[in-house]
């Protein structure tokens, strides 16, 4: 059966070779012709069929390819005399995989394994099929079979690895680990182990079963030498000892690691933890066998300390002496760990109240004197800074500022040191408490410092970072604070100018671009934000971690096609990755990297369960619905492909929510928007430190965000189905009493009610309470603002309630008062919410973070869904075949019902006209007028005339000569112009508003035609 020399899939190789070559050079047409010729000669050869299928798939003809593959599969199964070899199977496998039919490939291999038992090559092929399909149990069984067949260690390890995957990924009982351990033990007794990865796998088996002593014993024995890097071995040993509560031995081991790797901070923390016998909960390993870092905020560690004062002090002294030894050993180098260790030791002492508090500040200062000129200084000490009291903070800052009076001789060092000090100011939140005038002076001084030091970057390559680059980010941050505190728009524009200026000089600064993306979004210049985002060239896995900078704003904007592009790029990356990763797991098996197999499978799951991915899968159909909402027929087409929205409902089920992962990197977000759902600038600034500390706690905010995202996903998953049911059930009411309706109708009504109950709970109330609130607002008993900030969800709810109510008449008063029907409630809510948004007389420009996104959403969502309900009602009112009845419908139908529809249409027309007027007013001004107005904000008078305005400092730098800053920077400075930036802003705002206007106009046109037809 095996391919004999010169045969490929049972066909002489010379006949197949030309086809391979043609495929290789992507000449698919030619190769197809050759493959057809081959098939004519070998009509029952599965390999010839597989080749043809492969070519067809590559030519973009998946259906034909699948048909031929299935034919080949049939042949394999039915004809015993047919030639089957590995090449045939693997070629079929490739095609099946590309057609997303992994299971069919597996069937082929399974069949071949039965036909040719004990053929290792095919068994390995089948193993790979199971790997692709994540069938861990079958993997394990097959690997054991191969191990028994040939006794090779690698097959045993494949089996053990498959067991670990069952325990890690499919919550199988831990008991299986015992089996794995026994298997390995037996193998080791006769063969020992020869592969470091095998040892790591064995140790992890023991560690997972908490057999720490046994693991230490194995590691200390002969097998330990398999781990090539001595420090790695010691790290594992230290961890095992610590987990076995053998703290003194663990301390000793960690000490040994520190002596050879004094900069290993994690090991230092482990050392200190074991030495002081802290609560070592953090030492539990995570699933990937790494030590979890001790939590910094966890002060519990020291509080739980049971050591006596004397004992504590004596152990601290031994830590101090170790640290001193390490410092002496690495003096003069860049090893910072041993020096930062002093601060950590002081922190511990301070927590236990055993030493004077001054020592802590002193330790920070000592570290500053040594490393203050390094750009990592601020991030090194950031966590420690947050532990300072107000008094200590002032003292520390005062001493830092003193060093500015006698700066280092090297201008570069002086610049870097000054930057470190500014960064410390920033992380201590000084900008929120400093008097406004001082703050303004600081910004200008910083900007002057940046411009003055441009000369230092004269000879740098364009790709290299400029010296003092961080200054502009910090200046921009402070200017935004100034805006927050004063509401003077000029500051915000200055923040933008500074960053644009920096990007003119060097266009690769990622941080500036991110800041601009957010500032432009805030300023209603979303197209410009999108442009900068595109220039970041975010791709690959970064679409998962970084797209939060732009996607949320885009989803609430009228830029539908750009939003669609962002979503489809993201989904394409994720889908491709998830498909390709099936093969990548095999790479790790092939290279015998078992710990990587487990890491990788877990990583794959992490991405597969991504909250961003789930959200995007929901956003795509919702966006499509928004785009097509003007046509009931097109919306119904979308629903046909969506399984009427019920598949989306399943996406937010409890199991999915439990395993959701959050992979966003919020680190680079601006201080005023630590997560996509927070914008501090929307609220007024309040003085007061504790309040700020709470607000600016990024980690905490990120955790809160997770809860918000889960709610959002649930809402999004409900939305399409609610729209679908609303369209379906609205006409039911026209058929008369629901009791007469079909069973199907009754089900739909029941379902929409239960979904509405869920939706209400999601927005924070029970269904009945939500209804009461709506009615109370409608009757004027409660104000609109009682709905809270998420009025879009509330209005969606109102629209769907109306659709439901058409059949149930729950919302009507006993007197059948027409003003009380649910149509009126929708009309009222839409009208009041929209007119409230339109009452702001200012232009979009004058109110950053304006109501535009809310208005856009109101029109694109509840209003659009309501029009769909209206269309559906009207369609059912019109008798079939008489769609263009000349006389109105009002006479011929239930008149109160028809009147309600008419009123609603009139209401929508009038609100859309109002919005149209408002938007037109905004874009009526010429671009020149806008530019002048923007520039006037930048040229406002300043209380520090001698420093000039930010703009004047930027403009003054233009005069720096080529000899000072070099040709490239000089040319960039010359090309910079504030007016150009203002023009771009104005153009972007106009374009955004125009797109919104055209959406409104298209809906108006639709409503006019509906109105005419009634």
């Amino acid at each position: 059966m095996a391919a004999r020399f010169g045969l490929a899939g049972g066909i002489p190789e010379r006949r197949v070779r030309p086809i391979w070559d043609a495929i290789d050079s992507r000449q698919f047409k030619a190769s197809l012709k050759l493959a057809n010729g081959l098939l004519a000669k070998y009509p029952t050869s599965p390999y010839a069929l597989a080749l043809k299928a492969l070519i067809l798939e590559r030519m973009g003809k998946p259906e034909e390819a699948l048909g031929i593959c299935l034919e080949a599969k049939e042949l394999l199964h039915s004809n015993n005399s047919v030639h089957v070899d590995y090449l045939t199977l693997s070629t079929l496998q490739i095609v099946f995989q590309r057609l997303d039919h992994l299971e069919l490939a597996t069937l082929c291999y399974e069949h071949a394994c039965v036909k040719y038992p004990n053929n290792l090559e095919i068994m390995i092929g089948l193993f790979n099929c199971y790997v692709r399909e994540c069938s861990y149990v079958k993997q394990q069984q097959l690997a054991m079979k191969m191990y028994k067949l040939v006794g090779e260690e690698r097959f045993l390890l494949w089996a053990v690895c498959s067991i670990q995957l069952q325990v890690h990924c499919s919550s199988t009982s831990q008991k299986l680990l015992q089996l794995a351990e026994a298997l390995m033990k037996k193998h080791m007794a006769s063969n020992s182990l020869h592969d470091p990865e095998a040892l790591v796998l064995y140790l992890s088996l023991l560690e997972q079963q908490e057999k720490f002593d046994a693991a230490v014993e194995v590691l200390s024995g002969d097998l330990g030498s398999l781990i090539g890097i001595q420090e790695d071995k010691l790290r594992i040993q230290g961890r095992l000892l610590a987990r076995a509560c053998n703290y003194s031995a663990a301390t000793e081991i960690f000490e040994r690691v520190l002596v050879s790797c004094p900069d290993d901070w994690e090991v230092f923390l482990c050392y200190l933890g074991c030495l002081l016998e802290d609560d070592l909960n953090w030492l539990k390993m995570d699933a990937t066998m790494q030590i979890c870092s001790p939590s910094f905020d966890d002060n519990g560690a020291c509080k739980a300390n049971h050591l006596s004062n004397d004992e504590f002090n004596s152990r601290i002294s031994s830590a101090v002496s170790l640290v001193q030894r390490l410092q002496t050993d690495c003096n003069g180098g860049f090893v910072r760990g041993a020096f930062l260790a002093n601060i950590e030791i002081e922190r511990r002492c301070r927590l236990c109240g055993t030493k004077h508090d001054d020592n802590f500040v002193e330790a920070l200062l000592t570290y500053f004197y040594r490393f203050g000129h390094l750009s990592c200084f601020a991030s090194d000490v950031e966590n420690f800074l947050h532990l300072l009291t107000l008094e200590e903070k002032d003292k520390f800052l005062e001493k830092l500022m003193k060093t500015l009076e006698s700066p280092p001789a090297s201008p570069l060092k002086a610049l870097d040191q000054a930057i470190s000090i500014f960064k410390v100011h920033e992380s201590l939140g000084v900008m929120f408490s400093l008097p406004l005038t001082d703050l303004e002076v600081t910004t200008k001084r910083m900007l002057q410092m940046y411009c003055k030091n441009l000369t230092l970057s004269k000879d740098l390559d364009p790709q290299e970072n400029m010296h003092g680059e961080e200054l502009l980010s910090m200046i921009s941050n402070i200017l935004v604070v100034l805006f927050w505190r004063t509401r003077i728009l000029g500051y915000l524009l200055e923040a933008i100018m500074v960053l644009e200026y920096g990007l003119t000089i060097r266009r690769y600064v990622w941080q500036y671009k991110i800041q601009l993306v957010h500032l432009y979004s805030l300023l209603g210049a979303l197209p410009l934000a999108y442009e900068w985002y595109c220039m970041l060239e975010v791709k690959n896995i970064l679409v998962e971690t970084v797209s939060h900078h732009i996607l949320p704003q885009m989803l609430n904007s009228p830029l539908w096609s750009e939003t669609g592009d962002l979503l489809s790029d993201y989904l394409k990356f994720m889908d491709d990755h998830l498909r390709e990763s099936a093969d990548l797991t095999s790479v790790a098996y092939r290279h015998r990297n078992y710990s990587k197999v487990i890491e990788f499978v877990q990583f794959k799951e992490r991405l597969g369960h991504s909250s961003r991915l789930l959200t995007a899968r929901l956003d795509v159909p919702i966006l499509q619905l928004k785009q097509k909402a003007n046509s009931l027929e097109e919306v119904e087409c979308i629903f046909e492909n969506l399984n009427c929205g019920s598949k989306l409902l399943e996406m937010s089920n409890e199991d999915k929510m439990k395993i959701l992962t959050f992979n966003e990197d919020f680190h680079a977000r601006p201080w005023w928007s630590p997560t996509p759902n927070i914008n501090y600038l929307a609220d007024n600034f309040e003085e007061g430190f504790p309040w700020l500390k709470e607000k600016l706690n990024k980690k905490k905010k990120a955790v809160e965000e997770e809860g918000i995202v889960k709610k959002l996903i649930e809402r999004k998953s409900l939305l399409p189905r609610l729209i679908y049911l609303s369209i379906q059930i609205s006409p039911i009411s026209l058929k008369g009493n629901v009791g007469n309706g079909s069973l199907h109708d009754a089900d739909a009504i029941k379902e929409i009610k239960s979904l509405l109950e869920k939706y209400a709970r999601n927005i924070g109330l029970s269904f009945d309470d939500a209804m009461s609130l709506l009615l109370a607002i409608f009757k004027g008993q409660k104000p609109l603002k009682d709905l809270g900030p998420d009025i879009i969800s509330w209005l969606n709810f109102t629209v769907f309630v109306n659709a439901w109510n058409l059949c149930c008449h729950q919302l009507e008063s006993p007197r059948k008062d027409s003003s009380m029907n649910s149509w009126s409630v929708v009309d009222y809510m839409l009208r009041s919410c929209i007119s409230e948004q339109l009452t702001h007389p200012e232009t979009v420009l004058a109110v950053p973070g304006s109501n535009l996104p809310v208005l856009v959403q109101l029109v694109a969502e509840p209003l659009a869904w309501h029009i769909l309900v209206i269309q559906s009602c009207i369609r059912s009112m019109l008798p079939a075949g008489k769609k263009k009845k000349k006389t109105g419908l009002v006479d011929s139908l239930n008149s109160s019902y028809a009147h309600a529809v008419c009123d609603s249409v009139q209401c929508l027309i009038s609100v859309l006209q109002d919005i149209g007027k408002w938007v037109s007013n905004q874009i009526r001004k010429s671009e020149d007028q806008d530019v002048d107005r923007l520039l006037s904000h930048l040229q406002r008078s300043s209380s520090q005339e001698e420093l000039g305005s930010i703009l004047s400092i930027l403009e003054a730098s233009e005069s720096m000569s080529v000899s000072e800053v070099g040709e490239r920077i000089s040319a960039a400075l010359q090309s910079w112009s504030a007016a150009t930036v203002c023009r771009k802003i104005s153009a972007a705002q106009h374009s955004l508003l125009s797109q919104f206007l055209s959406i409104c106009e298209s809906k108006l046109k639709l409503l006019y035609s509906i109105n005419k037809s009634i």
Partner: protein
Amino acid sequence: MVCIRQATVNDLLAMQAGNLLCLPENYQMKYYLYHILSWPQLLFVAEDYDGRIVGYVLAKMEEDASEPCHGHITSLAVLRTHRKLGLATKLMTAAQNAMESVFGAEYVSLHVRRSNRAAFTLYTSSLSYRIHDVEAKYYADGEDAYDMRKQLKGRPHGHSHSHGHHHHHHGGCCSGESKAASFVDVSVAVDPAAGASGSNSLASVPASAAGE
């Protein structure tokens, strides 16, 4: 407090983010994955205080049986905030040592842009690389690359626990498939660098950010 340690798959997110910060090139995800799943011993990250990844080196073993066993540095990056701390040297040394001790590599090669003075200096003065050849128009933008090499001590490989032999024959679990795949450029299982986009720069060493 920078610890040089072997990379984990989860580090890839931070590594790519770092790449965005300091390299003009940005590799495909599967390229990173292929490296870490094939030669995890050669991937190192520089982890700073608080678990932040501030630098990394991506390296591989060349699988061409016609050449002597050698390694190749694919990518090296250090965040700007952590330059001038000797991290690039440490990362490179760690990767080179592993090539030698785990795989018995005789030498290590890399490519560097002709214009990248900082990286060139690092490779020649700190790490003793020598120019072996010049590859004309190696990068997508038409720039030439220096093909640089450094001789390793070339410890005889195969002693004690060497992995090396697994990489040179197709005895692994994907063996036969790579035969089939080799003419259909399914790429992922074979060599994503060559198959993914066909661009030469994918396999390059954009060490622009590595300047010490």
